[in-house]
């Protein structure tokens, strides 16, 4: 099981890219941290999730 934004989901074996796409995130407006380390956008496709991974996806909204 993988924690994504605090919720447990069965995502083991999926890439970060697959998860982002499946959850309809806009890659241009997000930041992804895996186990408290930033994942470069170029690495979304080759970063494969494992059991007990903790994924945080921050999706920014406009204004400032």
């Amino acid at each position, binding site marked *: 099981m993988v924690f994504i934004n605090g919720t447990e989901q069965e995502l083991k074996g999926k890439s970060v890219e697959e998860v982002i796409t499946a959850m309809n995130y806009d890659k241009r407006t997000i930041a992804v*941290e895996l186990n408290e380390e930033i994942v470069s956008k170029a690495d979304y496709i080759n970063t494969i999730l494992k059991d007990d991974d903790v994924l945080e996806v921050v999706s*920014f*909204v406009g*204004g*400032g």
Partner: protein
Amino acid sequence: MIPTKQEFYQALEERHGADNQRKFSDATVAICGLGGLGSNIAICLARAGIGKLILIDFDDVDVTNLHRQQYKASQVGLPKCQALKENLLEINPYISIECHNTKVTEDNVYTLIEDADIVCEAFDKAWCKSMLVNAVLEGFKDKPIIAGSGMAGFGSANDIATRKVSGRLYISGDGVSDVNDGIGLVASRVMVCAAHEAHMVLRFLMGCETP
């Protein structure tokens, strides 16, 4: 009569304690974007006695900015970093300010913020926020970034909070209120979010890493 430097810092020490004031005075904070968020963050940090601010924005002051940004009517047409620097020096004549009248890109971001101890993200566009946060977390090992996301509209100010996402990433805002949703924008709510970012800067400098 303008207080002397000694009088100015003595007043701050009486408020903050000498130890905390030293931490604030020794710090350099980069503020990326000088609009509703950034200009208000800058005012808070200048008043708190932060030693140096790096101010970055390519834009000029417009009449539509006066509604929430820390500029004066007489400054419409001036570059924001120049106008804000003037305003900050009237508040704290002893603060050090480095201005960059430029757009932050993936090519120049590292050079612009490398001297900062902490970065405040205060852009308007979501993709710019994403670009800056990714650049800071990927490009530096120690620099924390406090970003703003979700401060539009007239919803409850109580919905604005600061969340620690990880060791170096903090997000202030309600996370959802997008200025592009046509829900409006108002000084009071934007200032709450800006104060959240500024307050997190001060807490971090004091050694409190929780919001």
